[in-house]
């Protein structure tokens, strides 16, 4: 470690001036294509990357530390700030982990709403991916079109929970609100719109586009074995020919009742992953369409009945003394789950989002570990970037679809 003072400030022991032919450059943390606060230190030989060192931590807020100092319900809105592109999937992964710990299950209507929100978030996130990935590679117009549809999806989220980015739309034990009037009708028209635009706009603009193909084909190739070893999940793993989707293999919510396919690509490159994202959006709209008729057959109950852990509905709190007392204790002290540990994995748009919770029976989690897919995808960059050209670095960062809220936590 070098000794730093005012004249020779601490600079991470990096020697930018090399005696040999290599050059060291800093990519980020302010680079617009770095998807947030990624700093890549690249060692170049000519235009070829010989060594890549992803430096993260610029968005570190200590969310796991905060979890140890917050009651379980208090922490839920903080999970919004993990993967801020699709907040509901974080809320849901956390809520599911706590529910598994408590041994409760959300009522049917809440499950329908949650699954719909999760899939809507997947579409939002994937649209964001296509938009920014295309923008990074140089296709500006796709960005504008994709953000238009994303705006409609965010309007739907706003209609449901009032927020556009930080939803907190899922609670431990269910959902706080029922769907507003006409929401499902809007959802159906949104599905039609996305399906139409997918075929006629994004794919028409990109899939056979000569420049797009040249920039993406055989760029960022990762074998199935490497993908597994580096902890890749989600589209990064399926893009390498491994058919693994937690929604299918370890079904949660209503996924076991729904009919959908898992797209897999064995191209192992960025282009294959792009096609995968497009196909996943189609599958998401397919799931959303199936959920719409399911809603009407459900009872109106929205939160699980577990008075020890979860407050009674507002009506009961206002009319029954005991419910009010329970509610008071749960709000002021927080719920106390049983002693034990749980790891629950869910399929977030980016990959496997898991929460490990260690409970010692206190209202505060003893340890909470958030297994963020992007964290491991960022780690993969040090392998993936070696041997590629500097112009492809942006494409590869784009194709990993990393979001720094969950990399740094």
């Amino acid at each position: 470690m070098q000794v730093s003072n005012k004249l020779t400030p601490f600079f991470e022991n990096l020697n930018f001036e090399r005696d040999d032919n290599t050059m060291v450059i800093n990519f980020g943390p302010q680079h617009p294509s770095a998807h947030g606060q990624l700093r890549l230190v690249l060692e170049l030989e000519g235009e070829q990357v010989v060594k890549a060192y992803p430096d993260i931590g610029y968005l570190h807020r200590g969310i796991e530390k905060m979890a140890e100092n917050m009651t379980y319900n208090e922490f839920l809105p903080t999970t919004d700030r993990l993967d801020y592109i699709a907040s509901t999937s974080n809320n849901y992964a956390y809520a599911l982990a706590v529910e598994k710990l408590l041994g409760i299950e959300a009522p049917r209507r809440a499950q329908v709403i949650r699954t719909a929100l999760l899939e809507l978030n997947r579409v939002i996130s994937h649209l964001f991916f296509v938009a920014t990935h295309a923008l990074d590679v140089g296709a500006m117009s796709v960005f504008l079109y994709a953000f238009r549809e994303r705006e409609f999806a965010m309007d739907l989220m706003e209609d449901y929970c009032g927020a556009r980015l930080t939803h907190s739309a899922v609670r431990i034990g269910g959902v706080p609100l029922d769907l507003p009037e006409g929401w499902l009708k809007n959802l159906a028209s949104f599905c039609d719109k996305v399906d139409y635009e997918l075929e006629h706009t994004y794919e028409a603009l990109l899939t056979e586009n000569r420049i797009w193909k040249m920039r993406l084909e055989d760029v960022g190739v990762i074998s199935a074995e490497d993908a597994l070893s580096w902890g890749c999940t989600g589209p990064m793993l399926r893009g390498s020919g491994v058919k693994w989707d937690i929604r299918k293999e370890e079904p949660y919510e209503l996924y076991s009742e729904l009919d959908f396919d898992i797209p897999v690509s064995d191209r192992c490159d960025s282009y294959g992953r792009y096609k995968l994202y497009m196909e996943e959006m189609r599958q998401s709209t397919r799931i959303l369409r199936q959920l719409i008729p399911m809603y009407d057959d459900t009872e109106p109950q929205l939160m699980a009945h577990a008075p020890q852990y979860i407050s009674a509905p507002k009506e009961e709190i206002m009319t029954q003394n005991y419910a009010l007392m329970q509610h008071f204790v749960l709000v002021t002290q927080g719920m106390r789950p049983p002693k034990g540990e749980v790891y629950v994995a869910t399929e977030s748009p980016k990959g496997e989002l898991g929460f490990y919770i260690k409970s010692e029976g206190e209202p505060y989690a003893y340890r909470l570990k958030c297994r963020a897919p992007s964290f491991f995808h960022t780690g993969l960059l040090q392998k993936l970037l070696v041997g590629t050209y500097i112009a492809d670095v942006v494409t590869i960062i784009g194709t990993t679809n990393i979001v720094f809220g969950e990399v740094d936590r």
Partner: protein
Amino acid sequence: MRKYVPKDNVQKKSYYTDRFHVVPRVPREKVEDEHFVSVVEALAGDVKESYIEIGQLVLHINPEDNFKVLKILKEECGYTQCSEQSAVDYLAKDNEFELFWQLLNITEAKRVRVVCRLANASAIESVEPLFKSANFAEREIFDMFGIKVNNHPFLKRILMPDDWEGNPLLKTYPLQGDEFASWYEVDKIFGKEYRDIIGPENRDPAKIDVEDTKRFSRVGYEVEFGADYSTEEKDIEYSETLLVNYNKKSSKQLDERR
């Protein structure tokens, strides 16, 4: 008398606990699943304790066996992915860490958690040769808990700056940060002697200092930085570019989403 505050765990604690409150435990089931039984058999001598907790097999091992156990799990039992690995701080209670590795078998769709207890100030063997995901995960353990990992190719802080002091996820580390953390930027950029001049960081995001003419305290009454604002006029004319004449009739509200 001053209230006693334990120094070994400064995390938030519940202010009231019912005297008769008995904490239940999540049920630990016996290993009966066919696949899990074969896993436990493959690791016969190395497993101290095994049970199923919430659908996943938990294996307790000795910390020195971690590489061996994970190698068997990877090569013989098909656990090809290490989803997650991290530590839990039990220094206050037992003076040791609990380390866990969360493994995934994608052909059987099964998950195993390998758990070990590591004594304070001792090192663990890296599993990076088996699972490359350990590269980042072990750096995070090192950063957050200060646990040394032997034979890691590049053991360096990952989330915190390299010249940081302290390990944030230890129970002894306060949520708001310690003395070093609160003066980190000042010490680094200006030097320790500037602490008195600059003063401690204000963490109240809503704080407005009337004397500070720079930071939005005088919106609408802006003056130059450090200028005297005591004699200025009170009637401020807003710029036309900001407040356009809003005509309700010319705008249209859609009845339905387009």
